[in-house]
């Protein structure tokens, strides 16, 4: 029978050594000072990109998955001689921010010269000083062709640091065969659909729409309004009304019929409809949320000249038409519709890809929140999502 002392001695040794090392590390750390990183640069004195001559070298871009057709990157490489490393690692704004924040706080971008994030994340990064201003002389196509409704968003009124990549509508996606009566966000809370409704898991995607259902205009809502809407959602979760919170994976639930109505994005609906004509995107009676995913140039970008060349390239309607044809979201570039009308008249007439002004008259852009308000509502919403 081995002695207990023997059994304890080994682990005890380890613990003792660990505690000693811990004291050392903590001591050094406390003395050395410094915590998570540099303080944000704030609104003043953001760096401006300086484009120098012709683009060259290599360019690393981070974008969302399946957000570009297969031909654009090679065509760009041919046209400019820049070699592109195109990575699809933006899965969720918050997650991407979480991965990048430690680098950005030190002035690095992990090699990326351009990435694509949604409006509110671009605003948040801007406030922390992580983005550079653009040199407008490098992007004449953007100046010429950017769609007028996107020229002056509230978070970047003069488009100083962001250029839309694609835009989209957030609204209802419905199984018309299983839930034909769903026409508004409020309908999602109807008990007859209990357990068959999905909501989006990012606070900015879901709560403004629910606020619209409550009758509050999201653009002017106070933090208290946000909290009220979050409480309503919490109640729906507890009663079993909401099946789950998803990213794009509501697509699976809709296809299998596990969910009959969800909050979802227009581009996905176009894809889903291809295999199942009973799936339809519907404009909620309260209005929809208009969002864009924006190209931004971070601080520490190794090749901003090439990044701007890329922005310029994709704002040529000929090139953009290829992207729009594949992606099926709302293109921010004017002049694309006539080009597509010749190739794919169905796409050109699709309100989800080329929405008319009357179609989107009730829609609202993503509301702007201060950093502290954003943190509070995010925390409250996450508490609901994480049960």
């Amino acid at each position, binding site marked *: 029978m081995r002695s207990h002392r023997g059994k304890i001695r080994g682990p005890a040794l380890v613990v003792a050594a660990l505690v000693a*090392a811990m004291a050392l590390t903590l001591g050094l750390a406390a003395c050395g000072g410094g915590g998570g990183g540099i303080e944000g640069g704030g609104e003043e004195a953001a760096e401006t990109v300086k484009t120098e001559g012709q683009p060259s070298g290599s360019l690393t871009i981070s974008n969302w998955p399946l957000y570009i057709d297969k031909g654009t990157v090679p065509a760009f490489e041919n046209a400019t001689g820049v070699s592109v490393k195109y990575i699809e690692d933006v899965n969720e704004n918050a997650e991407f921010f*979480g*991965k990048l924040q430690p680098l950005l706080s030190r002035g690095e971008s992990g090699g990326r010269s351009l990435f694509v994030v949604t409006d509110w994340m671009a605003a948040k990064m801007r406030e922390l000083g992580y983005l550079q201003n653009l040199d407008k002389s490098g992007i004449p196509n953007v100046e010429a062709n950017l769609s007028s409704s996107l020229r002056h968003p509230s978070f970047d009124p003069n488009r100083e640091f962001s250029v839309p990549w694609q835009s989209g509508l957030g609204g209802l996606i419905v199984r018309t065969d299983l839930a034909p009566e769903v026409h508004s966000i409020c309908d999602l809370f109807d008990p007859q659909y209990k357990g068959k409704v999905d909501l989006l898991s990012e606070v900015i995607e879901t709560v403004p729409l629910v606020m619209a259902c409550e009758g509050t205009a999201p653009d002017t809502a106070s933090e208290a309004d946000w909290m009220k809407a979050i409480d309503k959602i919490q109640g729906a979760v507890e009663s079993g009304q909401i099946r789950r919170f998803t990213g794009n994976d509501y697509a699976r639930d809709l296809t299998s019929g596990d969910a009959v109505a969800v909050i979802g994005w227009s581009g996905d609906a176009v894809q889903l409809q291809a295999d199942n004509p009973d799936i339809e995107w519907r404009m909620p009676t309260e209005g929809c949320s208009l969002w864009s995913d924006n190209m931004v140039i971070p601080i520490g970008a190794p090749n901003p000249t090439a990044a701007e060349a890329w922005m310029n390239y994709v704002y040529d309607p000929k090139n953009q038409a290829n992207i729009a044809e594949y992606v099926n979201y709302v293109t921010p570039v004017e002049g694309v519709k006539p080009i597509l009308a010749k190739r794919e008249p169905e796409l050109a007439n699709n309100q989800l890809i080329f929405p008319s002004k009357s179609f989107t008259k009730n829609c609202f852009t993503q509301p702007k929140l201060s950093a502290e308000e954003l943190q509070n509502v*995010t925390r409250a919403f996450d508490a609901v999502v994480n049960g």
Partner: protein
Amino acid sequence: MTTIRRRVIPYFLLGPGTIWLVVFFVVPLFYMARLSLESGVVGNLEFNWDWSNFGDSLSLYDTQFVRSFIYAGLATLIALLISYPLAYTIAFKAGRWRNALLFAVIAPFFTTYLIRTLAWETILSDQSPVVKALQFVGLVPENGHVLATGAAVIAGLTYNFLPFMVLPIYASLERIDERLIEAAKDLYASASAAFWKVTLPLSAPGIVAGTLLTFIPASGDYVNAQFLGSAGNQMIGNVIQSLYLKQSDYPAAAALSFVLMALIMVIVVIYIRFAGSEALMGEEAK
């Protein structure tokens, strides 16, 4: 071999591994410890011995903690009940098929965790034959669903950690000297008595190892809850991931991670004291 050389050799053998583990496992944990004592907003964290993160994490997330341990515990129990017969068959009755069966246990690992979990989403979706059969039998209510419930999460956990349960049990069963079982039978023990009194106790080390190797990672898992569960089924791993990657609240995430580890350690220590620790530490050579 000189005595000095002989005494020094083990340290050389151990060296690279120990250094690697200390530098890349132990030290990061300390940095995380430092992080857990900071506070502030992202981009502006200050180290100020802020112990509130620890207290907060226990009070704010007690539901998720309890839920995680319950789910992991149930998954471990079910895995044990399922795996033991399989391990037994492979060890004693498989003969030539032994290795083929062992592959069948490990091979699903090579299709990647996510694809397997997503496949379960298809298998357990409301209109699938599996769920319809369960409804027919009465295990699932008529309009009920399996996905987006705790049951689906537990099922996913069980499935994904089965190899961790099967292999240790198999390993310890395989080492049992069959003469002991024969001896029991010679002493008029029935087949089941021989099992309960000889085989099962001798396989205890494997059971202990298997349950620990299953329970521990399962408690910290978040993938299954994310894809197979709903808002009411999220585990502590989901909270940590959300704190870290969504809210960028690193101090809280770090504190929560330590609390999780500490709780797991407590459970493990109690369990090992109860079950005997040689199983985990391994027997030494004579």
